[in-house]
């Protein structure tokens, strides 16, 4: 389990390769990367991500532990940036390794679904004429019901 919360950019290709190389016995590796998208209309100048130092690391570790308890994983990586980013920049990535592709896929989707709505990050979009906090989406909260054993 490798959790990193950092302001600096990360090298997605190098991280993906290093993660894959470290997965002894795995037959399947899944990665997810989130990029800063440009906005329709007025171009996005900066995407700024605020977080809650201390809680962020704990929340991500908890999510990764839950994934490892639920699926048989050879490993699990989360990197999430904070601070200022520009369109096209990589915001975050997760990677999962497992014997089987279904487990690797499901665990990566689980990590993403919880990370979206349970890790203390907040995005703010800055354009030439406006600054606004990104609103959370009901569909992101709804996505969690998929993982609820009582559903």
């Amino acid at each position, binding site marked *: 389990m490798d959790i990193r919360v950092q302001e600096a950019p990360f090298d997605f290709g190098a991280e993906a390769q290093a993660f894959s190389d470290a997965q002894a016995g795995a037959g399947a590796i899944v990665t997810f990367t*989130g990029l800063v998208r440009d906005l329709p209309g007025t171009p996005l100048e900066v995407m700024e991500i605020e977080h*809650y130092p201390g*809680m962020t690391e704990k929340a991500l570790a908890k999510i990764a532990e839950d994934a490892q308890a639920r699926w048989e994983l050879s490993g699990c990586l989360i990197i999430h940036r904070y601070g200022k980013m520009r369109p096209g920049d990589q*915001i975050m990535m997760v990677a999962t390794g497992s014997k089987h592709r279904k487990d690797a896929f499901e665990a990566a989707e689980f990590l993403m679904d919880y990370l979206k709505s349970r890790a203390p990050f*907040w995005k703010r979009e800055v354009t030439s004429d406006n600054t606004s*906090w990104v609103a959370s989406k009901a569909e992101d909260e709804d996505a969690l019901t998929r993982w609820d054993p009582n559903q």
Partner: protein
Amino acid sequence: MALDVLYFAWLREHVGVPRERVETDAATAGDLVKELLAKGEGYETAFADLTSLRVAIDQELVEFDAPLAGAREVAFFPPMTGG
């Protein structure tokens, strides 16, 4: 008891400070909000709609009826938008 109270994102902007030391006898996070409302207009705007807010006690997400006993740090913030 004395607590560190933290605010994030637009909540922080309305309140005007990222954190403050608060002396309180509130039993729950929700009771603490009621006390904070008395501190001024910024707080009223910030806490106008609790259903659109989240709270963490000692860096763990909880409900607004969670007890504050023994807590060192309480944080209020909007729903998260990571990923």
